[in-house]
């Protein structure tokens, strides 16, 4: 049996069904990332697990115990909030020891644990400061320290990096991943940033409108998206999605029977720009982004669908040129009219 289990979890805000029956099993030590567009219910789901919102339907099991209606303090979980939520009137040490103090832990033990956590997080020098006298990155680390000190069964993070600047974000991302490897603690991490999801997760949970779209290892989601939403949500720039009609008879050589009203998806790195006549589709170049190591060519087909091509060679095409787009046949994903996958790219298997 898995460590943390969500069984058909539901949440209503008034009439609004914010979480629509989520099933998920999480193993001990896993790093799970919830990802999805803003407003899809990531935070709500995390808060349901944390016990900060009441669960309206379904069951939540942790380590074999039903905690569906347990108060959050009895769940043995620790959360790192987006705003860090440090207690402003307490020093760093007091912040980190608050939970233990309330639990009536021995003073000496508390001190040891706090010092140990401070050491891991490079906070030893700041233990006597108040949060106000710390930088954003340090506050973030205190928030993490507060969670570590409690040695909870599961760590919960809600967009912990969104208040940091870009450079610090990358650095902290690496640190959190490293910390997870060292502590081996089960972690649920919420983000809207797919790069964070792809780089940190053991498994990614893609959410949309309060329901799970797909769960899988990062590359699995990239290679075998189960529907158009996941296909386009994971990957930058996003997967090209062309109505099957665009391809004419060529599409028939790919799938049979052809899903009426379906789409063919292909990632930008599997589209090449060739001279007219060599590819499958003619298109007009809109603009070219040269990023040095690679170039992105944005082109529009006669039916008005924009296609992006990512090339690792510098491209000589210019805006306004008519080019032919060549799709690598092994890397085409086919989706039916409902957006569900019919077949994933054959290239992955190789």
């Amino acid at each position, binding site marked *: 049996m898995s460590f943390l289990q969500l069984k058909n979890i539901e949440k209503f805000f008034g009439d609004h069904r914010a979480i629509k029956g989520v099933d998920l099993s999480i193993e001990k030590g896993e790093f799970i990332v919830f990802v999805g567009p803003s407003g899809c219910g990531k935070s709500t789901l995390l808060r349901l697990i944390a016990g*900060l919102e009441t669960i309206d339907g379904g069951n939540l099991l942790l380590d074999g115990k039903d905690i569906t209606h347990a108060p959050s*303090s009895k769940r043995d979980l620790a*959360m790192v909030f987006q705003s860090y939520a440090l*207690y402003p*009137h*307490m020093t760093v040490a007091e912040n980190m020891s*608050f939970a233990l103090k309330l*639990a009536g832990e021995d003073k000496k033990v508390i001190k040891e644990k706090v010092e140990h956590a401070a050491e891991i997080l490079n906070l030893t020098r700041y233990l006597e400061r108040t949060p106000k006298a710390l930088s954003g990155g340090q506050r973030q680390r205190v928030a993490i320290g507060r969670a570590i000190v409690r040695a909870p069964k599961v760590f919960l993070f809600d967009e912990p990096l969104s208040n940091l600047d870009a450079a610090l974000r990358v650095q902290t991302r690496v640190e959190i991943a490293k910390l997870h490897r060292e502590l081996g603690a089960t972690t649920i991490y919420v983000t809207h940033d797919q790069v964070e999801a792809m780089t940190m997760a053991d498994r990614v949970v893609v959410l949309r409108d309060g329901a799970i779209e797909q769960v899988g290892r990062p590359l699995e989601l990239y290679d075998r998206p189960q529907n158009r939403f996941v296909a386009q949500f994971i990957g930058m720039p996003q997967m090209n999605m062309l109505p099957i009609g665009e391809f004419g008879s060529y599409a028939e050589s790919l799938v049979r029977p052809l899903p009426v009203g379906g789409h063919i998806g292909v990632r930008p790195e599997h589209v090449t720009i060739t001279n007219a006549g060599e590819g499958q589709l003619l298109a007009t170049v809109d603009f070219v982004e040269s990023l040095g190591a690679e170039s992105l060519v944005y082109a529009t087909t006669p039916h008005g669908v924009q296609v992006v091509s990512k090339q690792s060679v510098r491209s000589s095409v210019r805006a306004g040129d008519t080019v032919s787009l060549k799709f690598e046949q092994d890397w085409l994903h086919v989706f039916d009219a409902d957006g569900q996958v019919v077949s994933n790219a054959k290239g992955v298997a190789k």
Partner: protein
Amino acid sequence: MKKFTARFLLTPAVGSLFLWMIVPLVMSIYFSLIRYNLMSPGEHEYIGLMNYEFFVTDPAFWPAVLNTFLLIGSVIVITLVFGMALALLVNDKFPGQSIVRVLLISPFFVMPAVNALLWKHMMMNPIYGVLAQVWRFFGAQPVNWLESYPLLSVIIMVSWQWLPFACLIFITSLQSMDREQLEAARMDGANYVQQFRYLYLPHLSRSVAVVVMIEMIFLLSVFAEIFTTTGGGPGFASTNVAFLIFVQGLMNFDVGVASAGGLFAVLLANIASVFLIRIIGKSLEK
């Protein structure tokens, strides 16, 4: 140059404020040093500090000082405790929240004299007052509030008047309380009392300082409530310094002693504010 211009432009405001303050002060000092009784015309000769001596040795003096402190202290404590409790109570959402809040604030808009009359006649009258009815309902002998507990009665009236002020300040302050901090505390296992002790109270400390300071300033001069209800009595039981000054000046017609009393009140206010700023200044600095 820039500094000079700034100073120059400030001069009218500062100047008029200065005059506003200095003229009455100087006049009070002058009156306090001369023999000046409205009932005995004639020379206003210089008599040194004798007016002060009269004021301080008046049998009403020490009771008045004590009553002043009792009044201020009790009202501040009552408004802090109940103000905080009420503010916390109406902080969570419930139907009709905004109406309840407006009702809570409204006693502050009642004039002190009207407030005192309301309490005197509607609530505390031993024959037809609401409290008398309540006492009778439980089979008890109604209390003659103004005679049996004159100072307590005044304290109740003034507290009722100032409770909304404290409450308002705390309500506003609670609105800036961080929700995630409370959630973090909940996850850390803090119960409501502990949340109050470790999160709400530190968060409200600034507002407590503001309430104490402002109430202190205004409560030193409580007058209307005493004048309209107990008249300072029985005896001196509900006379405070402000009321004693009134008695000297407008009932004994002794302007000199009243001025000396006024200056004593100024002194009292200054001593109190020095202590207050010492204590509270620290909490404000944070």
